[in-house]
């Protein structure tokens, strides 16, 4: 049997995924990283984006995370997501609406704090839309 990793994806709203994976791809703060079994211990922050999980069966599952943190141990990977969604729960219209709202906010706001917030929101919305497009291509 090929080597596997125990993967847990949790968010403040609940457990998203808990199981065995062959390989995991995550959007780390400094670019996407792929994690194979027996990876060196690592701690990193996550950007908004998608976490892709390759199951031992070869099947692939995707989850959207809106940022968070990641712990890697040789046998275990823990994703502490700020908000996580299963890819199937992602809704394009809400993602687009969120993007529009964020863009409007950026146009209207001059206040530095709200601007940073709006930019973060825009990034999240863009990541969701990007992931949806990828999903649709995969299906077509």
């Amino acid at each position, binding site marked *: 049997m090929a080597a596997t990793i125990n993967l847990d994806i949790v968010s403040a709203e609940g457990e998203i995924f808990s199981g065995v994976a062959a390989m995991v791809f995550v959007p780390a703060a400094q670019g996407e990283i792929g994690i194979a079994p027996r990876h060196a211990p690592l*701690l990193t*922050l996550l950007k908004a984006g998608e976490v892709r999980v390759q199951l031992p069966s070869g099947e692939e599952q995707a989850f959207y995370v809106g940022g968070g943190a990641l712990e890697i141990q040789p046998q275990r990977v823990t994703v*502490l997501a700020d908000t996580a969604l299963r890819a199937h729960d992602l809704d394009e219209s809400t993602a687009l609406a969120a993007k529009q709202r964020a863009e409007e906010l950026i146009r209207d706001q001059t206040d530095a704090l709200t601007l940073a917030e709006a930019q973060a929101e825009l990034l999240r919305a863009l990541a969701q839309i990007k992931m949806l497009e990828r999903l649709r291509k995969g299906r077509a």
Partner: protein
Amino acid sequence: MPGAKEIRTKIASIKSTQKITKAMQMVAASKMRKAQERMRAARPYAEKIRNVIGHICLTNPDHRHPYLTVRPVKTVGMIVIGTDRGLCGGLNVNTFKQALIAAREYESQGIAVNLCLFGSKAGQFFKRLKMPISSAIVGLGDRPHMAAFMGAVKVMLDDYVDGKIDRLVIVNAQFVNTMSQKPMVQQLLPAVPVRSPELPELFEYIYEPSAVELLDGLLFRYVESQVYQGTVENVACEMAARMVAMKSATDNAGKLIDELQLIYNKARQASITKEISEIVGGAAAV
């Protein structure tokens, strides 16, 4: 018919009290279901982040974050979570008693205790004891929000960084099941090492980007999630305790009504018997 009227009004008043307790019981039951769901949802994240932080405690990085550094303890910060409303049985009293036991133990070792109080019941209780209170927050509601209580917690965190307190613990009721809630004291800061069986004996993390930046974000999330978990758990406990308390109040009211009904019937029967014997006695005299 002396007494019968008073008994009747008493029965009516107990009946209306029973209606109220019954309604409160049902409201608490439905709120408990939702509160339990929220508690269950928050649990995995709180547990996982506690483990991750516990793992970090096992390593020896160049950068030592204050939240991870163990210092000699002179003052302890204690977050005590109570409820805003009463009528929930012994829930608050049990939690506060546990907090007091812990506080007395610290004091016997010459360690001072500073309090951070959640919920108006906690405020009322500890105000009388004249213990130093650093921060207090009331009116969190049934659906506590992180933003609402982080201000109060921030006071404690700042005190911790400034060295005014050397340890931070949280006391709240832990939900075991509907019938039982257990008060629990848990240390938040400095973080407690957790050794998982699958971990290598000695290891160091690679930090990306830098340890400082990462630990700041991670440790803040850690404290936030632990306090959040404590509050949602306490809400679930409050609802469960209120439901049970109100159920027994309703049952007791029922028993009281039965007993009074019996006394009322007896009094009524006695007065009828008396009247009959008076009539019979009167007829015999004629």
